[in-house]
C-alpha cells in the first residue's frame, strides 16, 4: 500500500464527503440532547429524509432545493411524533426512538418499492458551487473545493449552532432546560416549548443529513441506506461532550477512519478493516467510562418532565 499524496487527498476527500451527512445529524442532535430528550430515532429520521429527498427530487424533475426542504420536513414530522410522545405523554424515550426507526425502515422500504418498481434511476445531485479551476489545485482542490454545497453547509452549521447555543438567550435556555427544567419553569419560560423545539430541530437536521447522504454523490436510495449512521451521530454527540463544534470534529474523525478502512479493504492488511469500523463505537464506550465524577451529560436526559413535581 502506497501512501502518496494522491492517496491521501483521495482518502480525505472521501472522508469529508462521507462525514458531512453525519455531521449534520450530529450537530442537530445536540439540541435535542441538551433539552433533555434522548433521540435514538435520529437514524429513522435520517432514513426518512433520504427517501423523501430522492422522491421529491424525482417527482419535481430534479429540483434539489425542493427536495432538501421536503427532506427536512419529513424528519421534522417524525420528530414531532417523538416530541409528542416523550414530552407531552412522557413516554419512554428510548422505545419511542427505536419504534420510529422501525417505522421509518418499514415505510421507506414500502415507498421505494412503489416509487421505483422496476428499475432505479439517478436523480439530480447537489451542485458544486466552487468554480472548476479551483478543483485542480493539488490536495486542497479535491479535498475542499470540489465538494458539493451540502458539504460546505455541513461545515458551517456547527459554527452557527455553537454561536446560537452559547451566545443567545435561547441557547442559554436550552442549556438550562436539560439540566434543571423546573428552574426554567419558575423563571417564567415554557419548558414544553423548549423541548419541542429542540427535538424538532434535531429531526429537521437529521432529515437534512439524509438528503446529504443520497444527493451529494449517490443520487439514489436503497433500503436501509443509512445503515447505522444515525447511531454514529449519537456516539459523536457523547464523545464530543454535547458541544456542536466538537461533535462535528468527532464526526469528521469518524469519517476519516471510515474512509480509511474502505481503502484498507482493497489493499488487504494485517489489521482487519473491521477493527477500524469498530473504532468509533469502542471510543464512545471509553469516553463514557472516563466520565466518572463530573458528568457532562445534560442532567435530566431520558427523564420525563413532570411539571407538577416541583
Amino acid at each position: 500500500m502506497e501512501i502518496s499524496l494522491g492517496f491521501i487527498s483521495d482518502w480525505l476527500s472521501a472522508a469529508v464527503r462521507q462525514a458531512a451527512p453525519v455531521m449534520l445529524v450530529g450537530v442537530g442532535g445536540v439540541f435535542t440532547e441538551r433539552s433533555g430528550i434522548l433521540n435514538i430515532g435520529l437514524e429513522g429520521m435520517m432514513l426518512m429524509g433520504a427517501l423523501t429527498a430522492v422522491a421529491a427530487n424525482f417527482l419535481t424533475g430534479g429540483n434539489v432545493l425542493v427536495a432538501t426542504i421536503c427532506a427536512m420536513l419529513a424528519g421534522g414530522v417524525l420528530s414531532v411524533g417523538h416530541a409528542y410522545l416523550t414530552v407531552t405523554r412522557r413516554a419512554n424515550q428510548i422505545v419511542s426512538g427505536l419504534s420510529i426507526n422501525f417505522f421509518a425502515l418499514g415505510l421507506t422500504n414500502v415507498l421505494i418499492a412503489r416509487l421505483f418498481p422496476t428499475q432505479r434511476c439517478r436523480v439530480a445531485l447537489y451542485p458544486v458551487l466552487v468554480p472548476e479551476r479551483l478543483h485542480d489545485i493539488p490536495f486542497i482542490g479535491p479535498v475542499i473545493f470540489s465538494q458539493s454545497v451540502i458539504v460546505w453547509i455541513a461545515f458551517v452549521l456547527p459554527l452557527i449552532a455553537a454561536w446560537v447555543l452559547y451566545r443567545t438567550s435561547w441557547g442559554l435556555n436550552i442549556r438550562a432546560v436539560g439540566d434543571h427544567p423546573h428552574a426554567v419553569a419558575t423563571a417564567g419560560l415554557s419548558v414544553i416549548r423548549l423541548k419541542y423545539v429542540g427535538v424538532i430541530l434535531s429531526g429537521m437536521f437529521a432529515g437534512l443529513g439524509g438528503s446529504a447522504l443520497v444527493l451529494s454523490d449517490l443520487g439514489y436510495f436503497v433500503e436501509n441506506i443509512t445503515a447505522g449512521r444515525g447511531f454514529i451521530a449519537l456516539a459523536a454527540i457523547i464523545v464530543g461532550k454535547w458541544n456542536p463544534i466538537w461533535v462535528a470534529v468527532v464526526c469528521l474523525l469518524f469519517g476519516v477512519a471510515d474512509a480509511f478502512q474502505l481503502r484498507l479493504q482493497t489493499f488487504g492488511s494485517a489489521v482487519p478493516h473491521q477493527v477500524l469500523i469498530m473504532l468509533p463505537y469502542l471510543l464512545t464506550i471509553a469516553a463514557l467510562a472516563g466520565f466518572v465524577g463530573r458528568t457532562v451529560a445534560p442532567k435530566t436526559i431520558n427523564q420525563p418532565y413532570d411539571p407538577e413535581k416541583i
Partner: protein
Amino acid sequence: MMKRELVKSKMKSLWQTTLKDIVFTSARPVYAIGLAFLVSAIMIGASKVNPITAYVALFQGAFGSLAGLANTCVRATPLLLAGLGIAYGFKAGLLNIGAEGQMYAGGAAATVVALIPLPVPAFLHVTLAVLAGFAGGIIWGIIPGYLRAYRGVSEIVVTLMLNYVAIYLINWLVEEPHPLAELNTTFPQSPIIEKSAQLPILIKYTSMHAGIILGIVLGLILYLLLRYTPFGFKTRMIGQNPEAARYAGIRIKRQILFAMLISCGFGGLAGASEVLGLKHRLFDYFVGGVGYEAIAVALLANGNALGVIFSAFFFGALKAGANKMQIVSGIESSMALIVMALAVLFVIAIGFGERKFRPKRKKDKDSTERGIKAYGD
C-alpha cells in the same frame, strides 16, 4: 386430607392472581395493537388494496397451516428469548438495548461448540452448545454490567455501541480465511454445525425447533423467580429504588451486575437458538435487527415475563404472515414492520395505567397533607 385441600386452594389462588395479572397488564397493549391495525388498514386502503384481504392473508400465513404455525413459532423464538432477557433487565431497572450484539456473541459461542465433533450423545452436545450461547451473551454483558454497577455509567449507549462491535466481530470471524469461515463460498458463513449439536425439530418437515419450548419454559421460570424468590425480590427492589435497596442491606453493585449478566445471557441464548435450531450455521449479519425488535416485544408486555410470551408470538405471527400477505394481496412484507412499530408507539402513547384505586377517606389532616404534597406544599 386437609393438606391436599390446602395445596389445591393455594394453587387456585395462584392461578387466579396470575390470570388477573395477565388480564390487567394486557388490556392496554391489546387496545394499542388494535389501533395499530386500524391505522395500517388505512394505509393499505390507500394503496387500493382491501385491508380485509390483506389481514386475512396475514392471519393465514401465520396460523392457517401447519407450516405457517411452525413459521410463527420459529420467528417468535429469538424474540421470546431475547425479550425475556430485556424484560428481566427492565425489572432490575436496566435498559439493555444490546440484545442484537448479545445474539451475535451467543450465536458465535454456540457455533464454536457446535462445530467440534464431540463424542457425546446429542442431547449433551446441544446442551453444551446452548450453555455456550448463554455464556457468550454473558461475556458481552460484562463491560456494560461492570460500568453500570461499579461506575454508574448508563448502559444504554454502551450496549448500543457493543451491538456494532459484535456485528463486525462476527463479520470478521466468518470472512475467509478467519477461524470460523467456510472456505470457497459466495456468502460469508461458518461451516455447517454437527448434527449432534442441532436443536431437535418438533414437527416433521417444518423448521420448528425446540427453541420455542426453551423460551416458554424459561419464561415461566423467570416469572416465578421474580415473584416468589428472595432473589427476584431483591432484583425488583433494585429496579424500583436502588437507594432504598442499599438502605435495606442489599449489595446493589453485585445485584445490578448479576441482573445485567442474566439479561445479556438471554440475548446470547436467543442467538444460540437461531444458529442451533434454524440456520445451522453462523451467517454474516444473521441477526438482522431481531435484537431491536425484542425490545419492542418486552415493552409491549410491560416487562412482564408471561406477557413477553404472548407478545413474542404476536410479533412472530406478524412476521410469518407478512410474506403470505405480500403474495396474496401485494402489500409489501415491510408493512409488518410498520404495524409492529405502530403497536409499540401506540402502547407508549397510551401508557400502562395502574389499577385505579382511590380509597375513600374522610377529609382528615392526613389527606389534606397528602393531596397537596404533590403540588408543592
